[in-house]
Structures are given as structure tokens and as C-alpha cells.
């Protein structure tokens, strides 16, 4: 393995990834806990380490709109945001995907207001799940850097041509120092050649009008083609991940990452840094004779339905942990997992909502969720679509009292 080792934060890793990817335009607006990403990039550009245009926009809506303009003009564009910033962007987040522009974005997951809360949960990026963006959730700083590099390659591939967001947990990764191997620029250049739009761009030599009115006779097929591209992205991710493993010797999983699943009776399914806690919990539980494994969902879009189904075959139950809530319905991950196995497996799924607004979820908590779930499964008491976990005692009582 080449490259150099540094001890850096997740945000620093994201900024270095943008530099290594030779991004040409970075429109950016600061928001906690994303701020240091755009600060690092500004310093890379102003110190001459990075050859790119930095647009100090006046809002996140404009950040994404400017990234769209740059990508439409034919260059690689990158931005980063979190929480309210991502919500303000929402309109043009849709627009980027509809335009089939492979823009890259780091989303530093943070709760949404009110009340103000700068700590981690996934409500912000989950609110964007149906925009047509590829969504990857990561659980280490190395994975932040590597995944951004890989996802540019996936997004720009002619079968895909959709934008991507790499979601890293606020503070847990963004501000936490970890050793990260930073690959050499030449190696990255060979892995990720410069972006050349294969479909269309704003070129006076070849004028086209993009995005004008499409009547009902035309529109639906355009949406179908986005869905097709999203489904095709599944195999492209697996291909690119292997190519990356061959070249750089690192592997964080493809659309999913599996841990001790083969002989497991129960499977924990989680994303982001909660999956890291779950990994520890699996080891602890196995030490005490509980046969449990972990399925870390890395790619939420495209959703790995096949992998989930395969992982849950011949199992006794699944414990799905969500760090966001679809009010009155469940956790977004829980809902997807149920969809994956529906009509295929008759398997109890216990879906937990926890860790909102930065409430700490430790590996002991994951162990407790697994034990509670096993009790419910074994006594046939999986009686709700989802359960809240780690509410304060008086709220827990009210939750039990309420029906669903």
C-alpha cells in the first residue's frame, strides 16, 4: 500500500478526497458540523495545492445551484453541507439528479430544527432519499475519503450519471481524529480520470436546450430512466469497489458490509457509525454465546434489496436500528428492510428508533436492543411496526401506554 498516513478528522478526509479527485468547482456555504470541510478546501485552493474555483455563495440553495451550473458546463463539482443547509437545498438537490449531473457532496449528518441541535442523526439526508441521489453511509474517516473517490467514479459512469452524497455522522466522524491513509495523487489520477460529460453539456458549439417543459407524454420515461440508472448503480458500485480494492488494497464493503453473518441466528442491520457500535456488540454477544451478525447498509440509494434478502434467509429475526424517524411509520431503514423481504420471507423484524439529535448509542445499547428483540421474537411479541429506544423513563412509560 502506497500513500501517506495522517491522523485527521472525517471532515479533513472529505476535503482531501475532493482535492485528490481534482474537483474543478467548489461552491460552498458553511454550516456546523460541515464547516471545516469548506475551510480546508478554501485553504487548499488559496495555497495552490488545489486547482479549482471556489464560489463563496450566500446560501446552500445557491451552493447546489452553482454546482449544477458548473457540472452542466462540463466539469467535476463538489460541495458539502448538513442539516438545515441540506433542507434549504432540497429543491435543487432534485434538480441536480433530474439533470443527470454527477455532482459530489459530503453530507455531515446533523439533526434538524427546531429546536436547534448540531449533533448527529440522519433526518437530514433521509429527507433527501427520493431525490435521485446515490446515498452512501460510512463509519470511519478512511471510509469517508475512499468512498468519495469511488463514488465520483460510480456517479460519472455512463450507466449511472446521477449525483451522490457520502453521509458521515456529525462530530462522531466529522470532528474525530483517526489514522487515514492518503493515497498518492498519481494513483488517484489513474483510478479516476478527468470528468468528460458523456451525455450533454452547455456548449456553444453544440447548442441544446435543457430542462424545458416536458408534457405528460414525455415526462414519465425521464423518471423511469433515473430509476433505471439508480438500479444499475448497484452493480457499478460493486465493480468500482473491487477496482479500488485491487489498486489501493482497501475494502469497506460494497452496497453492504457483512460481519459474522454465516452462522448467525439474528442479524443487526444499521448504517453509519451505529454499525461500528453494532460490530462491537456482535463480538460481545458472541462471547456470551448469542449467535448474532451484522449487516451494515452502506448504500441506502440504490437500496440493496437483494443483499438484505440474502442476509436474512434462514435467520430467526432482524434488528434494524434507525437514527431518524418517518413519523408514525417507522425508521426509513426498517421500512426498506421490510420491503426487501416482503412476500419472500416470514421473518420477524424489530425496528428501533434511537440516537436522535446526538443521543449517545453505545455498543451496550445495541446489545440491549438485540436482547430485547430476541425476547420479543421468542415470545411472539413483535407487536409494533417500530419501537423507540433510550427514551427517558417517564417518556418510555408514556410510549408503552400509547397504542400505535
Amino acid at each position, binding site marked *: 500500500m502506497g500513500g501517506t498516513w495522517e491522523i485527521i478528522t472525517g471532515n479533513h478526509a472529505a476535503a482531501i478526497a475532493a482535492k485528490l479527485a481534482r474537483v474543478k468547482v467548489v461552491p460552498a456555504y458553511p454550516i456546523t458540523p460541515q464547516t471545516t470541510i469548506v475551510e480546508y478546501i478554501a485553504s487548499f485552493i488559496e495555497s495552490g495545492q488545489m486547482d479549482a474555483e471556489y464560489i463563496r455563495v450566500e*446560501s446552500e440553495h445557491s451552493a447546489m445551484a452553482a454546482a449544477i*451550473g*458548473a*457540472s452542466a458546463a462540463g466539469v467535476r463539482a463538489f460541495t458539502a453541507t448538513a442539516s438545515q443547509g441540506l433542507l434549504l437545498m432540497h429543491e435543487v438537490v432534485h434538480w441536480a439528479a433530474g439533470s443527470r449531473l454527477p455532482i459530489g457532496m459530503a453530507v455531515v449528518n446533523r439533526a434538524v430544527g427546531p429546536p436547534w441541535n448540531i449533533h448527529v442523526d440522519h433526518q437530514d439526508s433521509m429527507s433527501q432519499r427520493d431525490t435521485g441521489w446515490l446515498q452512501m453511509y460510512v463509519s470511519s474517516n478512511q471510509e469517508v475519503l475512499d468512498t468519495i473517490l469511488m463514488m465520483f467514479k460510480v456517479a460519472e459512469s455512463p450507466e449511472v450519471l446521477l449525483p451522490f452524497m457520502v453521509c458521515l455522522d456529525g462530530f462522531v466522524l466529522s470532528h474525530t481524529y483517526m489514522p487515514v491513509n492518503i493515497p498518492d495523487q498519481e494513483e488517484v489520477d489513474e483510478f479516476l480520470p478527468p470528468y468528460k460529460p458523456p451525455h450533454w453539456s452547455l456548449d456553444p458549439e453544440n447548442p441544446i436546450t435543457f430542462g424545458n417543459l416536458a408534457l405528460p407524454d414525455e415526462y414519465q420515461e425521464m423518471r423511469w430512466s433515473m430509476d433505471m440508472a439508480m438500479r444499475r448503480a448497484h452493480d457499478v458500485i460493486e465493480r468500482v469497489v473491487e477496482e479500488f480494492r485491487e489498486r489501493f488494497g482497501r475494502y469497506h464493503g460494497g452496497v453492504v458490509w457483512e460481519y459474522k453473518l454465516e452462522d448467525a441466528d439474528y442479524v443487526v442491520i444499521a448504517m453509519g457509525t451505529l454499525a461500528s457500535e453494532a460490530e462491537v456488540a456482535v463480538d460481545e454477544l458472541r462471547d456470551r454465546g448469542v449467535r448474532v451478525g451484522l449487516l451494515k447498509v452502506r448504500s441506502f440509494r440504490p437500496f440493496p434489496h437483494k443483499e438484505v434478502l440474502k442476509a436474512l434467509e434462514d435467520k430467526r429475526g432482524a434488528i434494524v436500528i434507525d437514527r431518524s424517524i418517518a413519523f408514525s411509520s417507522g425508521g426509513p431503514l426498517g421500512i426498506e428492510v421490510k420491503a426487501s423481504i416482503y412476500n419472500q420471507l416470514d421473518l420477524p423484524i424489530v425496528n428501533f428508533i434511537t440516537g436522535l439529535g446526538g443521543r449517545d448509542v453505545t455498543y451496550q445499547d445495541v446489545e440491549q436492543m438485540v436482547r430485547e428483540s430476541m425476547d420479543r421474537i421468542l415470545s411472539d411479541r413483535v407487536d409494533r411496526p417500530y419501537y423507540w429506544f433510550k427514551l427517558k423513563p417517564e417518556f418510555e412509560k408514556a410510549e408503552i401506554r400509547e397504542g400505535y
Partner: protein
Amino acid sequence: MPLTIYDLMKEKGSYLPGSAACPGCGATLAFRIASRVLGPNTVYVVPASCFSVIQSPFPKSAVGAPLYNIAFPAAAATASGVWRAFKTLNKEVNVVVWAGDGGTVDIGLQALSGAAERGENIIYVCYDNEAYMNTGIQRSGATPPYALTKTTPTGKREPSKDMPLIVAAHRVPYVATASVGYPFDLAKKFEKAKRIKGFKYIHIFSPCPPGWDYPVEKTAEIGKLAVDTYFWPLYEIENGKLKITLKPRRKPLKEFIRLQGRFRKMSDEEIAELEKMVVERWKFLEHLEKSERIF
């Protein structure tokens, strides 16, 4: 070399026959002239506006230059991204926002202000038909007082925003007003904007037959009368210095007002009151013209 009307007629422009515009549309008249001056080496960014429809539905297009449609509030930011990308590619291209008054003075104001303050090398054009016409005639921040719209059925009560001066206050190198009633003045301003580096803003008075309720053949006449009655003064602000580019012998405001159904509820007293405002504003501009720099 000075631009002549003959030069203008020679240029093909980017407005192709067969658009989806209403008859007598002022915005298309403005685009026809502007695109002839700007030439084919131009990229247009268009936010939600009449022009989203005028260009005609997919898979056809009435615009012969690259054109990107973007969401309502975002045109100036998108154009910034386009220009910066061209900069990294060492391409010299005119990057032009072609927006209506809603996309400029209201929902697009924040992105416009940001791009102006950053000094993006783009030409921002507001074709101003003084209301939300694409959605069927609702008032905007550019709607003049007393005008009837579907959201001001008894007439607007507030004065409109002074958008050209708001942009000029960003200390950008070039701001101009224009009217489709004075096409040559309009063309000259585009020619100038094309040559200046930095953020340029051109605000074009663009009469709208269905929105203002007047016969379709009167667009040019109303565009002229707006200027001749001082309702829409033609001026430019180059590097902070204001110059009134046309000083007509003033006609009574009534001649402009009484041609349009949108002002039909105005009494003679109200017209006199508006005329007083219009003349005061003309004097204010003459006063500004005397300064070395207004910003």
C-alpha cells in the same frame, strides 16, 4: 465601431421561429434583439418564468443557443457555476441569465445579490413584465402602484422595488435600464455589457398584452410611451456613474396609462398622483446624473 441598425439586422440571433410566446410578447422582442448582439457564443440560464414556456416544450426549442432551465430562485447562482467552470476550461463565453421580474426582484433576489457581490462575470437580464405573468397575472415586487392583478384585484397599493438601483448599490461595473420600445438603445447596452468584465445587470421594460390588457399590436408603442412619459427612464450606471441615455420631451402620463386595462380603475386624481411620483423620480435621476459617482 458604433453599432448600426443594419449590423443588428444582419445578425441571426438565437430566437428561432415557432416559439410558444403569446402574440405581441415584449420578452421575446427583447430576446430577439439581445441575442443578436450577444451572438452564438452565449449560454443562457433561465429560471421559472414565461421564458420557460416561450422556448417551447421538449423535444423542441425556439432557442438556438445552449440554454439551461433552473429552479425559480437559483438563476444567478447557476450562472455563477457555469462561468466558473468555463474559467477552469479557459473558455470565453457570454454567460447570461434571462429572468423575469419574479425571478429577479422577488424569489431570485438573494442569489442575484450574492452573485453581484462576488463580481461573477455574467450578464443578468431581467425582462420585466411587472407581474407574475406565467402563473396568470399575480402581483410581484415590480408591479407598479394601482395596477390590477389577480392578487391585487382592486389595484396594488405599494410602489415597486427600484431594482436597478438596488443592484447598482452592489457597486457592480454596469447597470442599465432598457425598453423594447427603444430597441437601438437596448442593443447598445448589450453591446456594452458584452465588453465589460464582471457583473452586468440590464433591466428591460417588457410590455405584456394579456397581463396588461392591451391590444397585441401596441407592445412597441407602450414600450415607447413608458419612456416618453418618464414612467420608465432609460439610463445606465457605468462604474458608479449614472447617465440618462434618452431624454425625451415628456408626454402626459395619461397617454401611457389609458392604453392599458390594468390601470382602468385609476381615477384622474390617481393618475395625477402617480405622475407626480414619476416626475419626482426623473428629477432624482437628473440629480444623480450630476454626481461623479453615485456608488
